[in-house]
């Protein structure tokens, strides 16, 4: 697996005529083969339907056909992109060689590219698009909740919107930070020239795009009524749109698992000389902790969804009580994945905050080991708490004290992160740049999210708050306030590195303040609404809660508007005006800021040698420069 061949320049492909360039393994072929595969699967599905082994479904419904159509569509899409070339040539015994990296040009962003920096940008744009689709769903949900009876959309469309919003965000945003930023920066931060498995890296991105497209296509098949949890037996009862959900989440699960595997293999094997575990940037540690969860939890999700798909198609009875199944089984399996999932969303945020704080406070990271053990602790503990989602379901009610305990215990390692944030801020020289503001926003939001989690982890209190808007507010504080705020922090922080351009700072600050205020104005009242008895996912609520709901809806629209400011800023600063950024605008000591911008294809001319962690800020206390105590001491 040699990567060094890329130094040899290839003749510019621009010399070929346009029609010739359209033929080959590219996005156009992929889309055509995807559509072809889709109709092939649809056709086969209808042939099978002739033998009719799922006879209790209305004739217009054919889950076998739709699932096969999605399956063949994805396969065709991947073949069209060129993902089959390598496996087939290996099968024929041809030697392994990395596909030549395209040196330059826009073409590489629209196809299979094994350059981790290109994949990072692809992820950023791709996930951004689906993030905005998911956000648009949220706007529609809040528009409906302007009135306490269904007016704007019907109840069926409403629960589909709720499901699509939830599933899109929980699915696509699992890779929200790992996709763009870890792919782009982890190899650079550890002094490597590539990821361990560049083809798998590209595959995770294109799988995710196919998945997002499939989820969006659910609107053509009647949507799905289950929300992102997909509970059985409602899942089994639902119309064909449910298959989109199953297919989406299974693909996301595979993508997640491969992404985590690739990240872990890269971090374990490809660190440059001198970069010991105790010198690893904290962001890389958070990626590592997240990857552990991705590799182990995601397969559980895939297995669960495969069982659900079998229940829907060939009438197995995993979750159907009539045939010997159990709906509890689904709840157990789903949340065994589902709880690690929420930490998959939260942990990269911890990493971003702790990575950025030293830069802007001009201090070393305070309590490096505490932060690492916090992240690994959260990661490990998250496998032991899943039944706190089921406190009132009647599952293993005798075990509730145990799950209460384990859930409370998980707040200890989370507290470590706060300790590190506060320690780093102590006597700091803080510059309130936009990324720093988002990090401070995270600290406040995650605090509220964490403290409200205490109420949910306590069964007596959870009896009222469970399944209400309280839960909804809680996890929006941890995920939107945790993940999305750090997502934006990372964008503002690293865009100068990724593009050589920067954002207009005034607009960026406006974006932060509007987003922060609107976010809190949206979700703080939801705690009250939940405590006053409004269940989640309802299009009709008690009339006395109307005023507060209108308030929340208007705040939500402002929150949506703040995203438009971001978008406008991106278009204005990065496309039209093209504000040039300095080489190292934040005066960071981390290695990614020391390589040239744009980063060369091979990142480094020579593999760097590390002699400390990247947090050598501040004025040493007793020893002179260059003699500081080793990192983590």
């Amino acid at each position, binding site marked *: 697996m040699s990567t060094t061949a890329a130094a040899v320049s290839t003749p510019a492909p621009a010399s070929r005529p346009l029609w010739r360039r359209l033929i080959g393994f590219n996005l156009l072929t992929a889309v055509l083969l995807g559509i072809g595969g889709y109709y092939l699967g649809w056709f086969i599905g209808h042939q099978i339907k002739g033998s009719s082994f799922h006879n209790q479904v209305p004739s217009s419904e054919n889950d076998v056909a739709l699932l096969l159509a999605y399956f063949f569509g994805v396969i065709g899409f991947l073949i069209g992109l060129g993902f089959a070339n390598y496996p087939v040539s290996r099968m024929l015994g041809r030697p392994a060689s990395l596909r030549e990296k395209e040196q330059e040009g826009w073409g590489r962003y629209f196809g299979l590219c094994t350059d981790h920096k290109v994949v990072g940008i692809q992820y950023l744009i791709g996930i951004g698009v689906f993030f905005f689709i998911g956000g648009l769903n949220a706007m529609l949900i809040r528009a409906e909740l302007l009135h306490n009876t269904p007016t704007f959309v019907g109840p069926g469309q409403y629960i589909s919107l709720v499901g699509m919003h939830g599933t899109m965000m929980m699915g696509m945003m699992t890779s929200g930070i790992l996709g763009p930023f870890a792919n782009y920066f982890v190899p650079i931060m550890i002094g490597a020239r590539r990821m361990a498995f560049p083809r798998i890296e590209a595959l995770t991105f294109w799988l995710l795009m196919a998945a997002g497209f499939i989820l969006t296509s659910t609107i053509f098949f009647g949507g799905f*009524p289950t929300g992102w949890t997909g509970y059985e037996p409602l899942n089994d009862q639902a119309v064909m749109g449910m298959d989109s959900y199953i297919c989406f989440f299974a693909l996301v699960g595979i993508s997640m698992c491969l992404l985590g595997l690739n990240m872990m293999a890269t971090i374990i094997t490809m660190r440059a000389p001198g970069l010991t575990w105790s010198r690893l940037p904290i962001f890389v540690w958070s990626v590592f902790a997240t990857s552990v969860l991705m590799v182990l939890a995601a397969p559980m999700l895939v297995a669960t969804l495969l069982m659900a798909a079998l229940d829907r198609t060939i009438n197995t009875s995993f979750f159907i009580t009539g045939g010997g199944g159990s709906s509890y089984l689904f709840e157990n399996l789903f949340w065994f994945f589902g709880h690690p999932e929420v930490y998959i969303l939260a942990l990269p945020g911890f990493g971003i905050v702790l990575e950025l704080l030293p830069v802007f406070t001009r201090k070393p990271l*305070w309590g490096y080991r505490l932060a690492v053990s916090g992240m690994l602790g959260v990661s490990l503990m998250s496998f032991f708490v899943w039944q706190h989602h089921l406190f009132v*379901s009647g599952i293993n009610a005798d075990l509730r004290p145990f799950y209460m305990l384990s859930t409370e215990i998980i707040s200890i390692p989370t507290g470590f992160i706060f300790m590190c944030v506060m320690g780093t801020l102590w006597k700091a020289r803080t510059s309130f740049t936009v990324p720093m503001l988002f990090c401070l926003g995270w600290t*406040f939001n995650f605090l509220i999210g964490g403290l409200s989690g205490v109420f949910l982890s306590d069964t007596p209190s959870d009896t009222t708050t469970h399944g209400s808007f309280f839960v909804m507010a809680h996890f929006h504080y941890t995920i939107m306030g945790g993940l999305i705020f750090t997502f934006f922090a990372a964008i503002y922080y690293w865009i100068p590195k990724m593009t050589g351009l920067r954002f207009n700072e005034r607009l960026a600050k406006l974006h932060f303040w509007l987003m922060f205020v609107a976010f809190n104005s949206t979700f703080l009242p939801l705690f009250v609404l939940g405590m006053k008895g409004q269940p989640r996912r309802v299009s009709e609520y008690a009339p006395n809660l109307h005023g507060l709901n209108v308030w929340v809806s208007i705040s939500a629209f402002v929150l949506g508007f703040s995203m438009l400011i971001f978008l406008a800023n991106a278009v204005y600063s990065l496309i039209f005006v093209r504000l040039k950024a300095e080489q190292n605008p934040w005066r960071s000591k981390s290695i990614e800021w020391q390589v040239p911008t744009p980063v060369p294809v091979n990142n480094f001319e020579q593999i760097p040698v590390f002699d400390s962690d990247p947090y050598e800020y501040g004025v040493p206390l007793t020893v002179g420069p260059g003699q500081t105590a080793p990192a983590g001491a």
Partner: protein
Amino acid sequence: MSSNPATSPAELAGEPNHARRFGLTWLIATVIATPLVIVLLGPILPPGKATEQAAGQVTDNTVLLGMATPVLLLVVIYLVYASIFFRQPKGGVLEGPAVRGDARIQTTWIVVTSLLVLSLAGYGTVRLLADNGAGSGSGPTPLTVPAGPKLPVQVIAQQWAFTYRYPTYGGVETPHLVLPVGKMIELHVTSLDVIHSFWAYQLGVKADANPQIDNIAFVKPTKVQSFEVRCAELCGLWHGEMFDHGRVVTEAEFETWIHEQQTRFAAATKSLPPYSTTYQPEPTRRGG
């Protein structure tokens, strides 16, 4: 902590004792705010005191809020304090002190947070067991069962309505829930199709209705009042419309009401399947 050579000597001399100042601010804020929160917010915390279980939850919520307030204040005041006093001067390039940790502070933090969360878990467990499940669905064989006589009431959820059966009154099935005050009620929650959740807000009861599962919750109403019933688990198209009102009435009123129901639904009761803790769901797989 230490001197900072990067700052000018004049500033160094005037450096206040930040630790003491911050600590005092937090302490004063906590001493003022915590009792205020408990006294002002405690009484209005959900779900009210209409039942023993609901009152227990209010106590629980108050304790949690009382414990959360100092933590909230600690971090928020810290953020504000740090934002005001630990700034980079405009256009400055000053460096902070190169402190990488403090074993004593870290140990204290770990010990304090551990004690805090362990005591919370212990307290939650005690409340859960003392209140006989605190109104939550506790499965077919609850760990703690209240002593004394109990009135069994079955809650049957289906898309998209709740109905109620009173097995001790001939298994009559009623469309609304009426309960006698001052009696321990044993709610058996089950479903005929998908998962629902029976949420009687003012009673402080929430129990998932699972097909083929008998989920038991105990509740003892202490006040005559009406209460709201809602479905709290997404159950399909009309999930949002799945609500109803119930009443807690005096025992005499209850007896009158139940006998009225028995006569009114006499014919319907005969055609119902005999009372059972769970019912076989309809065989259809696609309904909603």
